[in-house]
């Protein structure tokens, strides 16, 4: 006697639970819930239903005489069955893994929306450090997992989407470009659309990723995109709309009393604050425009008035569905963003298709494709360039200049310095001498614009030859073109004749995989799974660039309109063939062993030495399953315990074309003032021999790593601890070691140097409060301490400059026994460390160059708390960094220019700088000589004299994220055409709770993601505080 029973399955938060499998206990009959979480099933009398779903406790519910049975699932915090997508899109149970992984679900990523997906990861995963480089629209974010692994390149992880590697390049990595005013062009991983992402898995160590090849040695971020899901209807429609606003978080704190000038004498020709008190200026004087005025007025809000509120709109629609024959999903997302710098904007359109179909019961095909088009305009320049740097212009704008006046008057009046014979429009300057441009002239006319057209995707065929043997073939590609143009209008101060720079970039990666998977039950206790595969990977880069100078007709940016066009182009291709194997043994579902091996043949290494093998081994032991009745610890106390360990070795190749002695066609000759002489000159073209001596007997680079970890859950999962200890050694690095320039070369390429990282990652999760009414409070703390150390360099080499910020007076250097440090001229000190003061001036004296501090933090921590109750979900995330330094040139500029608030204290009365004076006999006495003038004191603290004073402890505590989400109750939703409505409000980067750096956000970095080196700031666009709301509707 059967009858039909209906019901609804909901989550602990009372959300609909689609796809929950329901089985009549003791039978093979069952069903799954629909998209609304409802089900209908014919059941015999006195039966029991088994409800199961990954991540939730399996529930047995006896069916009495009722005809409806609603079930609310309980989360299984022990996550015993959690699955993880690992290398090559292979899905594994987390408990099998002998290494640490972290997964962030797609729903987490879209709650607090940041146009750059990476920023959403900040503070969430132990051992993963995400640093937003600037507040520029479309700005880049640096990702470092477990510390730097290379002396010669930024240790960025590999990004893999659905098994295919994708580019995270930045193409912004010329030091000269950055020093003289590069824009933050963003990093290409920001093309990933959060709406299309099912989950992101961070594989932190090399063991996790030996199968991806060498690039995985810096860790891998594995992205799985969404697929169609089974629902009650043939198709599910999800709409999502979100809006957010951005405002600059922190601008320099400026003085409001002093006009421009020199030593208290007013001078409108200067862009600073070293003049007299504004209130003391009476009678007719010239203002910065050259007009006679009776008095001057202070405009203290210039910075705040300059920046505007940025807006971001993200709208997306996704349609998906599935049947037992196949699944499909189509998504479209539109993102429109305007930045905090006037005139900066970004638009991104993303189309995603993912479809799978069973051709026969054993042959499965799948294809997926993403098309992303990103256009941006008006990204501001940063760095030291005098013509285009908003930060530099603002940082030199006298208090007497009204920025609102500049906004409405872009062009110079006749009374301001106009070069002899100049006709046409000319930028108004902020000084009578006409040196620094009106920032609005720059934002209006001098635009950096770019367009990226990108396609990535792949196709796969999977065939079950036998129940125990599967063959899969996969081909994937990622390619994009990026067209950039930056213009400088005629009449721009410092670039009077105008110029433009056209840069076309093409990058393509192609990868094929062919793999066979064998799964065999060896005995009742042992299961074996083996994968053998072949991989081919090819990467191509093509660039062409034209620098056009001297425009005949204003604002016509064509090559023919330029008096000079200098073209350069670049092409590179590299290939790798790899063979790999991955063998896993499972003993009684609690002991797991895994060994992998891979051999690569790389095109970039010497033909006789281009093959290298690298192995890994890992083990996982689930203690609580091996000894279910641990005598001492009751199951209710220690619910789950797993130990894991692994070892991995990774070999790797190097950049292409590094082996031969070559001659380079030259486009220009230059000196430090960058007034480049362009070739051909006088009809002569030019070549130069390479400045890097090519290597002999090059070997592959090597990395060896160890990792030990434990995962413990107590009290049924209310308390969890996941700890990892790791050690990574990088050796035989292929780097260009500086040789004395007197050899005629600047560097020699060779295998040299060892770099290690040792660290601890810990993740503590607690559920302090949980009530039957559905109230729940979860807290999580993740912690990472990484000790990076340069173990050795080439014999006799005492330091290695990884990045030269020479124009900034600073270098990022690697020294044996140290980590990467900022180095620069320090103040002269006595043997006790006191600053030595020059008795004739009362000022400090520059001393020798010294290390000013590590660029890496001592430790980082993220603390998140979330509280949920009846559809409400409130959470916040605090991000903490301790240690490391940042050198801020902006601070130096506003101080040496007499604009910073601290330069005006005490009415600029000369004071005694604490320090010592050297006596004639070599002893020291406390300084008793006041500074010659306050202006000279602060001017001397400029980076060009010594960066020491502008180098600060980079520790910070930030309120990174706050969000409140509300899932409308069923009762309300039922009256609408929708099946689900959720609303969220979020704020990001809200508050710098603690920082030791004045005037700026300590997170800025002008070097971008392509160079080794952090903690250098100059004219960086201030970071944003964002507040937004999100509405999600499902039909």
């Amino acid at each position: 006697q059967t009858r039909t029973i209906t019901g609804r399955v909901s989550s602990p938060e009372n959300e609909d639970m689609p796809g929950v499998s329901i089985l009549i206990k003791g039978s093979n009959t069952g069903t799954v819930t629909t998209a609304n979480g409802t089900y209908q099933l014919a059941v015999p009398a006195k039966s029991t239903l088994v409800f199961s779903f990954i991540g939730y406790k399996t529930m047995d519910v006896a069916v009495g005489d009722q005809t409806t049975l609603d079930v609310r699932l309980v989360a299984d915090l022990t996550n015993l069955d959690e699955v993880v997508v690992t290398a090559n899109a292979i899905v594994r149970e987390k408990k099998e893994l002998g290494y640490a992984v972290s997964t962030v679900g797609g729903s987490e990523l879209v709650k607090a929306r940041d146009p750059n997906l990476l920023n959403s990861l900040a503070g969430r995963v132990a051992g993963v450090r995400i640093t937003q480089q600037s507040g520029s629209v479309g700005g880049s974010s640096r990702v470092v997992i477990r510390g730097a692994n290379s002396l010669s390149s930024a240790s960025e992880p590999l990004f893999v989407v659905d098994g295919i590697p994708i580019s995270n390049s930045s193409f912004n990595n010329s030091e000269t470009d950055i020093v003289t005013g590069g824009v933050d062009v963003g990093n290409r991983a920001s093309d990933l659309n959060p709406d299309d992402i099912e989950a992101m898995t961070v594989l932190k160590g090399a063991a996790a990723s030996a199968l991806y090849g060498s690039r995985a040695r810096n860790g891998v971020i594995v992205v799985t995109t969404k697929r169609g899901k089974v629902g009650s209807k043939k198709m599910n429609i999800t709409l999502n709309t979100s809006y957010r606003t951005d405002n600059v978080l922190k601008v320099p704190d400026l003085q409001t009393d002093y006009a421009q000038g020199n030593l208290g004498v007013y001078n409108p020709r200067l862009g600073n604050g070293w003049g007299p008190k504004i209130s003391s200026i009476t009678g007719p004087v010239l203002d910065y425009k050259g007009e006679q005025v009776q008095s001057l007025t202070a405009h203290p809000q210039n910075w705040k008035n300059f920046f505007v509120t940025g807006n971001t709109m993200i709208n997306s629609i996704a349609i998906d569905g599935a049947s037992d024959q196949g699944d499909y999903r189509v998504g479209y997302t539109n993102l429109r963003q305007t930045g905090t710098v006037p005139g900066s904007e970004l638009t991104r359109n993303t189309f995603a298709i993912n479809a799978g179909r069973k051709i026969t019961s054993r042959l499965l095909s799948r294809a997926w494709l993403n098309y992303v088009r990103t256009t941006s305009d008006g990204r501001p320049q940063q760095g030291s360039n005098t013509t285009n740097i908003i930060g530099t212009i603002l940082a030199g704008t006298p208090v007497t200049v009204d920025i609102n006046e500049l906004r409405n008057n872009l062009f110079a009046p006749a009374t301001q310095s106009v070069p002899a014979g100049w006709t046409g429009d000319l930028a108004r300057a902020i000084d009578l001498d006409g040196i620094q441009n009106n920032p609005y002239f720059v934002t209006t006319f001098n635009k950096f614009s770019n367009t990226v057209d990108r396609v990535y995707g792949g196709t796969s065929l999977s065939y079950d030859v036998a129940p125990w043997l599967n063959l899969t073939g996969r081909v994937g590609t990622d390619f994009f073109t990026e067209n950039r143009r930056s213009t400088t209008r005629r009449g721009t101060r410092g670039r009077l004749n105008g110029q433009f720079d056209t840069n076309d970039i093409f990058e393509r990666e192609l990868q094929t995989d062919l793999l066979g998977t064998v799964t065999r039950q060896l005995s009742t206790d042992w299961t074996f799974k083996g994968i053998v595969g072949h991989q081919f990977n090819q990467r191509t880069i093509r660039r062409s660039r034209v620098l056009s100078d001297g425009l005949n007709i204003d604002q016509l940016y064509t090559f023919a309109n330029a008096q000079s066009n200098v073209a350069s182009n670049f092409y590179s291709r590299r290939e790798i063939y790899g063979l790999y194997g991955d063998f896993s043994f499972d003993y009684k579902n609690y002991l797991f062993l895994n060994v992998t091996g891979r051999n690569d043949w790389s095109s970039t290494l010497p033909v006789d030495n281009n093959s290298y093998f690298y192995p890994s081994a890992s083990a996982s032991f689930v203690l609580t399953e091996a000894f279910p009745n641990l005598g001492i610890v009751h199951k209710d106390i220690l619910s789950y315990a797993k130990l894991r360990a692994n070892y991995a070795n990774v070999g790797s190749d190097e950049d292409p074309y590094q082996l031969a002695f070559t001659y380079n066609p030259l486009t220009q000759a230059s000196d430090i003032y960058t007034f480049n002489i362009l070739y051909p000159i006088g009809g002569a073209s030019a070549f130069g021999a390479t400045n890097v001596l090519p290597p002999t007997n090059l070997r592959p680079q090597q990395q060896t790593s160890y990792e030990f970890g434990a995962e413990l859950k107590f009290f049924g999962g209310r308390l969890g601890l996941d700890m990892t200890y790791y050690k990574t050694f990088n050796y035989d690095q292929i780097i260009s070691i500086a040789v004395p320039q007197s050899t005629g070369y600047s560097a020699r390429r060779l295998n040299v140097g060892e770099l290690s990282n040792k660290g601890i990652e810990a993740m503590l999760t607690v559920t302090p409060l949980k009530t039957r009414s559905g109230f729940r409070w979860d807290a999580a703390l993740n912690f990472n301490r990484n000790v990076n150390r340069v173990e050795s360099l080439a014999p006799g080499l005492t330091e290695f400059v990884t990045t030269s910020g020479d124009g900034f007076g600073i270098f990022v250097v690697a020294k044996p026994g140290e980590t990467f440090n900022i180095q620069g001229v320090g103040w002269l000190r006595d043997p006790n460390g006191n600053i030595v003061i020059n008795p004739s001036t009362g000022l400090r004296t520059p001393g020798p160059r010294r290390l000013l501090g590590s660029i890496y933090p001592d430790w980082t921590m993220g603390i998140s708390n979330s509280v949920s109750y009846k559809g409400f979900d409130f959470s916040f995330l605090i991000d903490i960094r301790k240690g490391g330094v940042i050198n801020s040139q902006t601070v130096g500029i506003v101080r040496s220019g007499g604009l910073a608030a601290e330069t005006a204290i005490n009415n600029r009365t000369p004071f005694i700088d604490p320090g010592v004076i050297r006596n004639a006999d070599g002893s020291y006495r406390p300084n008793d000589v006041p500074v010659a003038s306050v202006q000279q004191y602060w001017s001397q603290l400029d980076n060009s004299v010594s960066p020491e004073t502008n180098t600060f402890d980079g520790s910070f505590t930030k309120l990174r994220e706050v969000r409140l989400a509300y899932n409308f109750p069923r009762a309300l939703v039922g009256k609408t055409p929708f099946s689900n409505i959720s609303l969220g409000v979020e704020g990001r980067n809200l508050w710098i709770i603690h920082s030791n750096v004045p005037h700026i956000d300590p997170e800025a970095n002008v070097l971008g993601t392509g160079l080794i080196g952090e903690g250098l700031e100059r004219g960086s666009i201030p970071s944003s505080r964002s507040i937004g709301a999100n509405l999600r509707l499902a039909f």
Partner: protein
Amino acid sequence: FRNSDINIDPNRSTSVDPALLFSGASTQFSLLRVGELTWPIALMNQMWASGGRWGLEQAKYDQTRVRSAWGRTYTDVLKNLNVAIEVAQKAQPVNKNAVAQCKIMMAFAFAQTSLLWGDIPFSEAATGTVDLPKFDKQVDVLTGSIAMLDEAIGLIDPNAKGIIAPNDLYYGGDMTKWRKFANSLKLRIMFSMVDADPTKSTAIGQLITSGNMIASSADAMQFKYYNQPGRQNPRFSFTAIFRGGVQSDWYCSKVVYNLLASLNDPRIPYFYQPGPAAGANEFVALNSVETYTDKSALVNINLLKPDLPEVSFSYSEQLLLEAEAIARGFVTGSSFDMATQRFRAGVKESLLSLGLPTAQTDTYVAGLPALTAANYKTVLAQQQYLDLFMRPIEGWVQNRRSGTIGQEIPAMTTPAGAPVSGLVRRLLYRSEEINSNPNTPTGLAVDTPLWFDK
């Protein structure tokens, strides 16, 4: 990947014509002379005044502004010339003239580098074969440069082709002129040595007697710039880029101005322009620590024109050196009459090259005192210094060799606030070299004299 061309660089070449290396090396060398080695040196040695602009304060003897010249001279100039010589020597037949042209440029660059820094890598430098080149004594560098010039002169065949136009940016392949320059350069180097090594006087005498040196303004060694974007004289670009074409960086230095004024020299308005708030002929000079005002006189914008050539060796310089050789009795059969004649011809050439009218020039030259045993040291050195006004590298050498320490002409005093008690007498070795080459001499102060500076 065996037999595959995948790792063959499509962006660069594995063979090259030495002419292309030569044009690159000479352009880079000229750019350094007229750019990076102009501003800091002209200010440090008080030829120009900074007026407190640009952080290029004279009193700081700020050498962070000479950042790339050391490295680029070795890697982009000397190394490429060396490689060009290797390629030219492998040609069939050997391109002897090209080898000669490269060697002359190498000698020029080595001598210049030594006269700025003192002891420098020479015998083991710029070859890529010695990892840690030793620092040769200045006397050996200068002697070696002369020997290199002799080798080059021996290779020259005026009837054969070497590196020609457009890649020879100095003489368009005219080997006769290259030989003249090589001899004149030998003369200049020997003069820089003669105070420390008096035996050079004989060699100087012989050199002048045998002639074959720069003998007209058409023979002058100069690198041309053009009024086209990217081909302009960088001194113009500096003002154009940083100041919108308004000269407001390089001020009139009291040392030079006072000398001109004491000589009643008509070059004042050619060297300088009055400040924006000054009267028509009001030239207000600055000392090495004074801050500029609206009235401060500036280096004349006409000397910063886009198409002015960079002068490596001028005819006036040649004539004045000859006058000095004769006056000092290095040349057999010399007389002060002869010296005076060369001296006046040299000064005349100097004024004419600035564009002064012939009549005014003649009047001034006629009014110059005849050289005598008593006055020649001062009178000649004054004119030699003024002749090198826009050439701070040579001007600095001239000033340092014009008298014993403290007795230079014109006399200069240490700026208040200078980090050392004396005048700046050398450039300091760059950290790139110090950090990678343990042979780099240490413990040298900015005012430690070089070997030649007696």
